[in-house]
């Protein structure tokens, strides 16, 4: 915890540093704001001059100095007008830069997510990542710019107001300025005692979010197990949120309450001190009172801004930590890319090992896949098959060793060009928002809608699509209840086949169907494909008998390889696995 606290100040500075391209613009913006504030600070002086002149007129019975009063009034009004014009200009540009920086930040983290190893992303819950991308990344700049602008403005306000006030009366000036430390000390005491309520509320809300997210995404799951309502359970959670939010909000309101208290108190103090000075003729003009009342009011209003800004700094620090956790992760996947690939021919694994936190997932694997062949990678769950696919898909990089595509290291090949030649069907397929047809053609580079039905018919998915309410035009979403898992897989397989490419990979793509269907579909794919290399990853050995080459993995090592017949004759691990599955 202590270590984290030490790190925090660095975060906001990093955010500020990333806004460097905007430095000139932000500085001019702050300058505009400052000009406004300088004008604003001198406004009460002119008000005071008017009151003094009026007082003189009334008390001493002299003729009113209209020219002087008009002059002062015009200056007062012009200052107000210019101040507001400057404020509006500054505010609009502040919003614009803030907006640009937010966009840049959100897009930056989004692009970063696209190039990070998939295993790194899997360490975060969906809700967590959504919040970092959707909320925190943008919020960082909104808060940072506001803090920079406000603090700069307020500092200048304090300086110019102090000059203006000391110009009128130093004692009253000191009285008004004394509100500043008073407010800051009170703020410090209050915030140090209330921090725990903020923390508690954050924790409670995070839990509530997780609970609601789970209850929603597993709605069907709960229903099937007869868990309905959950009214009592939620009532308890809701009650906790109610208590935590009430406490937090009360703490937040304390800020306003004590500022009001100090504001009222300062009004009184300024009046009393002025009274004493006036009675003793130390301050002879009455006009100082309304001027100082206005100064006191504005001083406190700015102090509120400073206390708010400190809260924002704390928020930025906390958020930046979460955002930079992602931004700082090394981009091992694309950093060496500089070549485009025209076709995927021979694939070679050259002494490839993968180690994650001391856990050896693949150990010195070497094999070659000739173009146009059908290859199967088999083995029990957890023996490294999927990692081979992730490496081939450029979703991960090997710890040691190389993967060569026609002799070129895969790490040097640009993703865009490589993915144009690659198709993969994973065991957990993703359904995009859109129709069935759009999903089948999603990412299909050579769009041939007329081929869709011929492929789905051949692969046996046409039947269930035909039973959907709008057939191929049925609208789908990621969580659509219209499709079972095996049907999602079927769409995914059809999509991969339609996509073509030099290399097609099926990674447990039919894990939820039965062996007969899997075998049938895989054999159809082998028959349909032309000059493509196909890799089948499965734990069901019957489905891949017809492959040209079979690689058997165990504990991250290749223990056997060859054709089905060769491996059966060997009567080794493959054979035993085959007969006992």
């Amino acid at each position, binding site marked *: 915890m202590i270590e984290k606290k030490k790190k925090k100040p660095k975060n906001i500075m990093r955010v500020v540093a990333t806004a460097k391209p905007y430095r000139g613009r932000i500085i001019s913006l702050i300058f505009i704001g400052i000009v406004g504030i300088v004008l604003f600070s001198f406004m009460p002086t002119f008000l005071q001059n008017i009151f003094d002149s*009026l007082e003189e007129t009334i008390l001493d019975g002299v003729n009113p100095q209209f020219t002087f009063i008009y002059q002062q009034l015009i200056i007062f009004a012009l200052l107000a007008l210019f101040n507001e014009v400057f404020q509006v200009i500054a505010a609009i540009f502040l919003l614009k830069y803030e907006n640009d920086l937010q966009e840049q930040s959100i897009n930056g983290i989004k692009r970063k997510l696209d190039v990070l190893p998939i295993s790194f992303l899997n360490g975060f819950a969906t809700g967590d990542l959504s919040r970092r991308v959707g909320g925190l990344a943008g919020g960082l700049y909104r808060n940072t710019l506001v803090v920079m602008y406000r603090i700069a403005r307020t500092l200048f306000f304090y300086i110019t107001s102090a000059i203006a006030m000391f110009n009128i009366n130093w004692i009253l000036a000191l009285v008004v300025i004394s509100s500043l430390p008073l407010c800051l000390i009170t703020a410090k005491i209050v915030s140090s005692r209330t921090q725990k309520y903020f923390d508690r509320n954050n924790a409670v809300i995070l839990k509530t979010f997780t609970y609601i997210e789970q209850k*929603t995404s597993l709605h069907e799951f709960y229903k099937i197990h007869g868990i309905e309502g959950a009214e009592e359970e939620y009532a308890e959670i809701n009650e906790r949120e109610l208590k935590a939010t009430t406490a937090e909000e009360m703490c937040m309101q304390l800020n306003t309450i004590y500022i009001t208290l100090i504001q009222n108190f300062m009004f009184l103090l300024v009046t009393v001190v002025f009274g004493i000075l006036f009675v003793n003729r130390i301050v002879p003009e009455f006009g100082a009172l309304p001027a100082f009342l206005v100064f006191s009011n504005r001083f406190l209003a700015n102090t509120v801004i400073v206390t708010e800004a400190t809260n924002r700094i704390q928020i930025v620090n906390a958020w930046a930590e979460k955002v930079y956790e992602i931004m700082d992760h090394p981009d091992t996947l694309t950093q060496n890319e500089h070549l485009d690939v025209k076709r995927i021919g021979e694939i070679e694994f050259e002494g490839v090992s993968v180690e994650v936190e001391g856990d050896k997932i693949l150990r010195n694997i070497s094999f070659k896949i000739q173009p146009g062949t059908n290859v199967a990678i088999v083995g029990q769950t957890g023996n490294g098959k999927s990692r081979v696919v992730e490496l081939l898909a450029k979703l991960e990089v090997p710890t040691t060793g190389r993967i060569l595509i026609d002799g070129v290291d895969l790490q040097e090949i640009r993703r865009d060009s490589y993915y144009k030649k690659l198709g993969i069907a994973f065991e957990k397929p993703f359904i995009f*928002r859109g129709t069935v047809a759009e999903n089948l053609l999603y990412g299909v580079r050579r769009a041939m809608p007329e081929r869709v039905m011929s492929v789905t018919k051949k692969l046996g998915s046409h039947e269930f699509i035909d039973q959907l309410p709008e057939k191929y035009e049925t609208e789908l979403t990621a969580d659509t209840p219209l499709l079972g898992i095996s049907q999602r897989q079927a769409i995914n397989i059809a999509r991969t086949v339609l996509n073509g490419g030099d290399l097609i990979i099926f990674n447990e793509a039919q894990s*939820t169907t039965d062996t007969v269907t899997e075998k049938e579909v895989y054999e159809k794919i082998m028959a349909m494909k032309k000059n493509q290399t196909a890799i089948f990853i499965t*734990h069901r050995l019957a489905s891949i008998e017809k492959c040209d080459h079979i690689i058997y993995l165990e504990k991250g090592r290749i223990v056997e390889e060859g054709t089905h017949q060769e491996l059966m004759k060997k009567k080794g691990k493959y054979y035993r696995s085959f007969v006992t599955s």
Partner: protein
Amino acid sequence: MGASSSYVRYNDKRYTVGTKRLMFIAMFFMLVLEGLALYFPMLLQRVTEIIMHSADSANTAGETITSIVLNAVMVFGFIILILIVNVTAEYFMIAFTNKYSANIRSELFNKFQRVSSSTLEKYGQSKVMPVIQNDSHWLRQYKRRVISSIIFIPITIFGSLVMMFLLDVRYSLIALAAVPFIGLFFWIYMRRMKKVIPQSVQAFDDYFINVKEGITGARDIRILGKADERAKQFEKLVYSQRRQAMSADVGINLSISFHAIIFTIITVIIILYGIHFNMQVAQDLVILNTILQYLTRIQTGSHILFTWFVEHMPRIKLCKERIEEVINLPEIAQDKGLTSLPLIAEPRLEIVNVEYAYPNGTNALTGVNINVPHNARIAIAGGVGSGKNMLARIILREKAQTSGDVLFNDIDTTSISVSYLRRHVFSYCGPHARILTGTMRDNLKMFAPNATDEEIMQLFEDMDAIDFTQKFGSNFLDFKLNDRTPLGDGTKNLINIVRMTLKPSYIYVYNQCFEHVRPEYLTGLMQHLKREKKTCLMVTYSGHICRSCNRVYVLKNGKITGEGKHADLMAYNADYKRFYASTLGMIQDEEINYEEKTAQEQNDNKEMAAQGLDELPMFDSSPESKTSHGGVAP
């Protein structure tokens, strides 16, 4: 307040439970607070008057100062009173608005639990969180604004005006000149915001859905070469969302400046008026000073009113519509079946002549008869499209059969409430294992809250799966999981199997959940189920499970085409033989020493015979199934 009357229905009882008392107390103290705040400048004026008149007064400087200090002490007491009332008012206001918002959250959450999954899907899962958490928050703000408007606006704006009238009518009339200008500004900006805010909320929804989809589909999006295209789409969404948000913010900034300019002009006019027509005695100067203080209060009040009307009102209107949309979602019909059953010692399940026809007339199931006796493990074997899933859904009453009955100890399951049936009668282990965010223990004890750690570990031991638990490190049960933890299907299925086996139920239904699970674990599971005398129905295409079951029903094209023990089916049922052989690969049974493998089964058979279970008919007695068996027997 015409504005608040359109939201009267938000005073509906379900949202206001336990809030009324809090609201009235809050309103009372807010009223007192505003009254005190309004009177404060007047009180301060008394001190100012003493100061102003000190020159003409006969009192000495010391006496004047004493008088100032005495009055100041009184004002100080007043300030403390304001503080106390302020804290009390805030407390009750916060307690009230939060309670109100909690009521709305609870209404919404519970509503979502009462709708069917497909209704929820149609509504949009990703909208659930924003509507529960954000919209209820906005409505809370709305309540606060309404209450403070009722108190604050009349007192701050009108009260200050009244005070000004009391001090000087002419000054007050000048102040009123601000009204048409501010009104015009209100009108212009409100028209704009009415358009901008719904667009902004919509843009945020689209943006958030895109973020979530991008995360869950990250891998597929990359491979499909869509990362760049989607990034551009995403950038557009971000741009539109940011632009809308900025539009709203600019309005607020313009409002502050507009108010400042208008009120500066009014101040100048008031001073000019004072100079020319109203400045005879010292008291007039004091009054002008107080008038300017009230003017500042009106300026603040007017700006708050503007923000409230322009920014909050359209947003709240939208919240109201969104909440209304949820409240109007159709609910699942009330479940009227039995909600409790007497304790059953020997649970059994019978599926009698069940048929299911799709609306287009094709049959998914035809005359299905299955008997699951007490303490028996019964398998239903069949390939894709055989009707296995439909049968499981009918058993769970997810689908209603066209005809036929599902009997649980002779009780028609349609007479039992769905939730009781699913909660207490069945333990259902489905093909789609779901992982909850929490520890492994939370996941495993989900349906068996009373299960101890020892019992859980014992089950893993029975299943010969201790090595599985060791993969998660020394603290298996405390291992933390989330919805993105990359677990293989085999791991998820095993967790699901253990979870559902731990659940105390009468009938255990395992539906295609054995995929990727190591065979030795399944052997262990079958032995455990047998030892615990659990009554199980296993819908599967795992030959491994079929071999260990007491009886297997072969399902093909929605019909039972054979039933019996594994060994008998292998001998007499071509469908089963083909199916079984395919699950093991095209390998001859002799080659894997069939006798050896069935030795265990023969032992089981003896046990079953001892329990009288062996007397079950070997084949279905229906004429249709006899024909089908006759046709395929070698």
